[in-house]
């Protein structure tokens, strides 16, 4: 006879046979996420534009959906805001008269393409060989 390794089968008869709640079981055992998590996840998916509003409401989020629709109405006003007209003039007046300073040579970006890389390598090898030759002659 094979050993029964399922711990649930070894319960004594007097142990009440209650079903473990989803929350009590390890996460890996849950086939369906907790109800609260699904609700929040669906709400966020709706707010991210990934599922329709009806789906968010279907998961018991009606109150939350109404809340976010109200917030959205306020946020929409902010989304349409423009820079006040006087700000443009203020910035232009505050700009220094001189053109922006050119970048000093040590801050300039060096673009290395294959040709430049090959030339630099060849140069380094030539210099190395010359130094090597000089040292050998010196002995």
């Amino acid at each position, binding site marked *: 006879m094979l050993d029964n390794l399922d711990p649930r089968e070894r319960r004594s008869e007097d142990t009440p046979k209650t079903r473990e709640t989803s929350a009590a079981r390890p996460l890996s055992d849950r086939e369906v996420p907790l109800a609260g998590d699904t609700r*929040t996840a669906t709400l*966020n998916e*709706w*707010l*991210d*534009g*990934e*599922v*329709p*509003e009806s789906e*968010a409401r279907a998961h018991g989020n009606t*109150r*939350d959906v*109404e*809340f*976010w*629709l*109200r*917030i*959205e*109405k*306020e*946020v*929409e*006003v*902010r*989304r*349409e*805001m*423009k*820079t*006040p007209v006087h*700000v*443009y003039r*203020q*910035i*232009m007046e*505050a*700009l*220094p*008269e001189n*053109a*922006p*300073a*050119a*970048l000093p040579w040590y*801050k300039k*970006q060096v673009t290395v393409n294959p040709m430049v890389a090959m030339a630099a390598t060849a140069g380094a090898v030539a210099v190395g060989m010359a130094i090597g030759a000089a040292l050998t002659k010196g002995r």
Partner: protein
Amino acid sequence: MKRYTSGVKTTSVMIAPRAADSQEADHEVIGRVLAGDRNAFGMLIRRYSDPLYRHALGMTGSPDVAEDILQASFIKAYQHLAEVHGRFDAWIFRIVANGCKDWLKNIRRTHLSYEEDDQPSAFATPEEDLDRTELRSDLDRALAQLAPSLREAFVMKHVEGRSYEEMADLLGTTVGALKMRVHRAREALQVLLEEKYA
């Protein structure tokens, strides 16, 4: 992927519409400014000031501070214009975003509201307008209580209507991390506001 109408509207991938064929590209405008055409810089200001202003306003909650940050950022950008190597819009965004974070670090905030707001109301009746004023103040207060990184993520997603990909590009982080920040910001805002508004 199909996008549903939801609480959030996402814009295109860039801060503002990219320079169309008829428009001079940013790097060409920058070249003119560096050659001494100071007025050409105005083109860059007009092109990018609105989304940057919205970001500064969302982060600070004060129109005056947002204007100051915007002005200081554009002046700094002008002085260091020769250092732009990549996208100007991403570069100027980082200057403004850092300006906002510095301000948040240095200022002990009291109540701030959009007192000087003269934007048109989207609400039909005076009652709705009154409700909106209250909601606006409450939302400002709630936003002010969020950690700067959560506030930044919420403002970029909801107020500026950016996609997660664009946010990741601008902030140099991952889409997953930003989704987490936005979700946490929503959760926190809902806890702070739902007693009154839910």
